[in-house]
């Protein structure tokens, strides 16, 4: 296995120091009570909130990369997706890359032309995953990526993420769902106040 992301001595708002690593193709699942700081931990890794620590992506330290370059490779998806333009397609870059992924997640082909305001929360959640995947990040930080989805759509999302992992992407996922964690995690962590503990067994 090749080391993808190495996190050492990371601390900030949700506490710390946190230390863990992620190998290519791995999927870490973090669980823990609401409000403990799981989302803030993901945001710190993406450098979206002030934090300190030594982070390396494939041997390159975060400090020597510009923040946009880091986030293009280590991309964070919030639990509630944000949209900055009127229609879906305006969020997709490159535009053509989005179309083939729609059917994979059970979305209708003409949804790209739809105004964002008319989408259901489940549609938005899947489209925000597509929006991130077409930019080819090395690591995806997913905050409850299937919270608004039915079991069928959840299976499709998990399958697409597994396919990307097989191609070398890594994922760190915050999930409240123990069955989901059991299905997709290569390693599992429990977050308690300011600490991350690795759980035994996948």
């Amino acid at each position: 296995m090749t080391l993808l992301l190495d996190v050492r001595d990371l601390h900030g708002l949700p506490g710390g120091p946190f230390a863990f690593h992620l190998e290519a193709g791995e999927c870490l699942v973090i669980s823990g009570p609401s409000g403990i700081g799981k989302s803030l931990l993901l945001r710190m890794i993406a450098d979206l909130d002030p934090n300190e620590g030594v982070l390396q992506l494939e041997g390159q330290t975060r400090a020597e990369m510009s923040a946009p370059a880091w986030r293009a490779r280590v991309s964070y998806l919030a639990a509630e997706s944000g949209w900055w333009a009127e229609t879906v397609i305006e969020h997709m870059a490159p535009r053509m890359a989005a179309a083939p992924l729609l059917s994979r997640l059970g979305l209708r082909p003409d949804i790209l032309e739809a105004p964002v305001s008319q989408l259901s929360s489940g549609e938005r959640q899947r489209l925000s995953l597509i929006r991130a995947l077409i930019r080819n990040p090395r690591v995806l930080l997913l905050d409850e990526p299937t919270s608004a989805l039915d079991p069928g759509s959840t299976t499709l999302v998990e399958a697409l993420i597994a396919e990307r992992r097989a191609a070398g992407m890594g994922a760190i996922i915050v999930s409240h769902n123990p069955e989901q964690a059991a299905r997709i995690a290569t390693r599992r962590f429990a977050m308690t106040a300011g600490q991350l503990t690795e759980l035994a067994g996948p």
Partner: protein
Amino acid sequence: MNAPSLTPADLALAAALVLASAGLSLLLDFRIHRPMVVASLRMVAQLLLVGQVLRIVFRIGHPIVTLAVLAVMAAAVVYEVGARPERRLAGLWHYMAGGLPTVVCGFAIVVLALLTALSPSPWYDARVAIPLAGIILGNVMNAVSLALNVFFSAAVRERGAIEARLALGATKGQALHGVSTQALRTALIPTINQMAAAGIITLPGIMTGQLLAGMDPIGAAKYQILLMGLMLSGSFAGALLALKLAATRLTDDRHRLRLDRLRPRG
């Protein structure tokens, strides 16, 4: 040109109309009578005071005295532009983001006009410099406070959208572009509307004043055209600089959105 002088009886008419309006508001329970009366009293006191001060300043005609008046105006503008937005930056940045652009861009435009188009003799003549500074600063101040107000509230309201862009690798400039555009447009709309309506729907203030003072209509129109150009460019420059400063403070060198640096008003 000699303006007709107003007698105390003429002013009493204005006072009577205000009192009648306040009385009507009281009668109909619209509860606007108090602000009406208080604002009227303030206005009378302020204008008479400023009239007296300007009379003395014009008589002395010394540049230091003119400069002192302009400095007081600048201080008032810095305070006022800071008092308006619903949200504000913490600490001294609050005055930096609003006051600095207003004063710098406002005075740059004033000095430019004094040295070129208006060129009174001497160029710093208080009779031209002070009223010109007043109208330009007032206009730039409105634009800057509108720009900051929209920028800060939109940044808070659209945090999810801004951070979604950042999270995918956008720079802070790209992520804030939509919000900045909204803010700049809102800031300039009053001045643009004023220009579009000028002469058709309303006679602008300067022109009205000069017509009442007996100036030739074409001469008055030329003055108004010059001033409108000064106001629009001053407002644009002021709002642009204010947005640049606000965006700088609302983000950091790691391209994060720093809403923690905003405070609600008060």
